Structures are given as structure tokens and as C-alpha cells.
């Protein structure tokens, strides 16, 4: 599903072997600049933490990288393809098949059962219901929530729900997993468990993880971090630890 080798025809300015690269991204909401020249790159199998104070533009960076939001300017390359040149339809298709998402909360459809929630991205991509739910269940097993299958999100705890969300994000075999404060609503113990399961599962499928967090202990699950301040990103770890 996701284990095809990275393509070599990446544009010149992208670091070699990089799966997702952004240069000089700018995005303005009204008059406030959310991103003001941000750079980013990630390799397959890498976990990168995006850190920074609230309001610094972390989430906007994630939304731009995932093709949810189109940046005002800058280049955005995924797997050799220019994301900013894609239509909304193409980007939606890309998000369905190549990307996975975990948010802080409010992402599980409350009226669907957990297993239906996990199967949702697969079904959206056209997998028949039975197959989708079988795959979903196997992912729930990996995240140790397979017993929650027939329950509704309202009936499970926050940590369990977040693990269901991780299972859903991974179910479609994404090559990049975007996680925006995935443990933000959880206590330490549950947060740690979710991070452990998330990074392990991502590593096992060689998926890259973009992890937006303001918590150092969560960021410690990453391979390196970049810091966003006032809309600009600094790839600190590239300079000092690598």
C-alpha cells in the first residue's frame, strides 16, 4: 500500500529523498499572517515534531502541508508532485489515499460505531463495506481497541477514542500521518500510550508523521523537531543535532 520507494524525480530545491517538502510558505488570514516564510521537509518513516507557542502558525503549517489549505505563495511538493497546482478534487483524493489525520478531538462521527469510523476512509476510497470493516478491525487490534468495535464514540473514554482515531488515520495505509495535538485532550498516561502506539504503527509501515504539539514529552517521540515562531519555521534540529 504505502511501501513503494520514494521517487527520484523530486524538484531540485527539495532535499534528496524527501517525501514532502515546503519552501517559503506564506498564508494570510484576513490581515494576520499565519505563515510568513515557513520551510519544511520530511522523509519517509520520519517523525517530525512541529513545535511553537500557540498562535505561532503550527496548525496552519500542518493544514498547508496536508493540502487542506492552499498557501498564498511558496512551493509544496509531495512525492515529486506539485501540491499547490492540484485541484481541490485531486487534493481530496490525495488526502483520502495517501494521508492520514488525527486531531485533538471532535473527529469521530458520533453516530457511527467505532469500527465504522475506522472503516470510513477506506469506504470513501471505494472499498466495499465488509472488506473495509475487516481491515479496520485489524488496525483496531494493533491499537488495542478492537473490543470497542460496536460501541459509539460517545461510549468510550478519551484515550480509547483517540486510539480509534489513530487506527482510522492508519487504516487506509497513508504515507504521511498528520497529527495535530493528538494527545491534547488526554492525561499523561493515556497520551504516552497513544504516542507510543502511533509512532510504532507509523514506523512499521514506514509512514512519515507530522506531529504538531506544544508538549515536549510528546515531541520527544519524534526524530527531530522544527519550531514555528511568528509564522516562520526553524529547522533547529537539522542545524544542531544532525
Amino acid at each position: 500500500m504505502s511501501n513503494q520507494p520514494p521517487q527520484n524525480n523530486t524538484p531540485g530545491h527539495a532535499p534528496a529523498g524527501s517525501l514532502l517538502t515546503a519552501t517559503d510558505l506564506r498564508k494570510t488570514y484576513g490581515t494576520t499572517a499565519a505563515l510568513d516564510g515557513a520551510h519544511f521537509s520530511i522523509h519517509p518513516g520520519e517523525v517530525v515534531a512541529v513545535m511553537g507557542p500557540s498562535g505561532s502558525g503550527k496548525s496552519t503549517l500542518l493544514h498547508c502541508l496536508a493540502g487542506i489549505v492552499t498557501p498564498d505563495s511558496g512551493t509544496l511538493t509531495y512525492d515529486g508532485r506539485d501540491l499547490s497546482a492540484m485541484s481541490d478534487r485531486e487534493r481530496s483524493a490525495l488526502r483520502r489515499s495517501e494521508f492520514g489525520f488525527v486531531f485533538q478531538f471532535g473527529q469521530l462521527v458520533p453516530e457511527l460505531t467505532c469500527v465504522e469510523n475506522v472503516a470510513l476512509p477506506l469506504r470513501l476510497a471505494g472499498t466495499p463495506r465488509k472488506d473495509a470493516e475487516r481491515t479496520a478491525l485489524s488496525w483496531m487490534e494493533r491499537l488495542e481497541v478492537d473490543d470497542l468495535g460496536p460501541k459509539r464514540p460517545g461510549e468510550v473514554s478519551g484515550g480509547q477514542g483517540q486510539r480509534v482515531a489513530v487506527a482510522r488515520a492508519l487504516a487506509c495505509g497513508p504515507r504521511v500521518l498528520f497529527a495535530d495535538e493528538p494527545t491534547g485532550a488526554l492525561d499523561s498516561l493515556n497520551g504516552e500510550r497513544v504516542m507510543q502506539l502511533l509512532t510504532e504503527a507509523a514506523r512499521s509501515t514506514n509512514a512519515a508523521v507530522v506531529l504538531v504539539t506544544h508538549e515536549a514529552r510528546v515531541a520527544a517521540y519524534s526524530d527531530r523537531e522544527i519550531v514555528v515562531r511568528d509564522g516562520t519555521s526553524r529547522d533547529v534540529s537539522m542545524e544542531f543535532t544532525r
Partner: protein
Amino acid sequence: MSIGHTLLGLLEAGPRHGYDLKRAFDEKFGHDRPLHYGQVYSTMSRLLKNGLVEVDGTESGAGPERKRYAITDAGITDVEQWLAEPEKPEPYLQSTLYTKVVLALLTGRSADTLLDTQRAEHLRLMRILTDRKRGGDLADQLICDHALFHLEADLRWLELTAARLDRLATEIRR
């Protein structure tokens, strides 16, 4: 905390007498533990010996001998190196970090960079601890968690300081 580096940093603003140095240090960093005059003199003579400061002039008067010290180029380099080098992450190093931040602001260096560097260093250690926790038993995990929580507290303080650097800068330069 390195008193030598701190005094050197204070001298970067301009030559001072030993007594002035003590007063400046006490005002900015020695809230609860003022420096002894003797400490100043012994430190200054060590710095003098290492060529990091020089005597700018001597005033004779009623009291003790009053030397005016100035920082040398070697001294400036030494301060710069000290500031750029991240502290080994361990609990309770706020005072050192605080001194560094203030000195960076006083001497017109980038405090942001200093904080980023320190954060990266902290995270590096936290990654190692997190990794160890992954493979370790419960005791290991608890020990690592203890350290992780303390390091996280440091980092939180760093973020907080970073957020308030501007205010700090105006207050220090006053």
C-alpha cells in the same frame, strides 16, 4: 553558574571598577546571595592572568586600591562561546539559563537562538530517555519519566521566557 563568564559579560558594556562590577552583579543576578568583594577580586585576577580582561586604569584614594577592568577580545570570544554552548540538561539549571538569557540581551546577542539551542539540547536528551522508556521495565520507565517531567518543566520555562523576551529586554536595559 560561572561567575567568571558573568563578570566578563558585564564588562562587555564598558570598563568598570571592581566595586561597580559587584554592584551590577548583585543587582541583576545576586538577589538572594550577594557576591563577596573578595570573590570579585579573585575572579578578576584569574581572568587577568588568562588574558581575558585587562586593567584599564587605577585610582588611588582613601580606601582600597581601585582598578578599572576592561574586557579583551579574547574575553569577548570566551563569552560568546559560553553563551552559544547549550547547558547540559539537568534539573534546576534555570539560574544559569536565566543568567545566559539576560547576558545575551545585555550584550545585544540573540536570546531566541539561545533558547532554541537549549530546547534542541533538552529534546535530544528527552528523546534518549523516551527511547529507553520504550524498551525498559516499569522501574526504568518511572525513573525516565521523573527526568522527563523535570526536563519538560525546564522547557516550559524556556518557552515562557522566550514569550517574554521583549519585556525582559526593556526591563534589563533600563
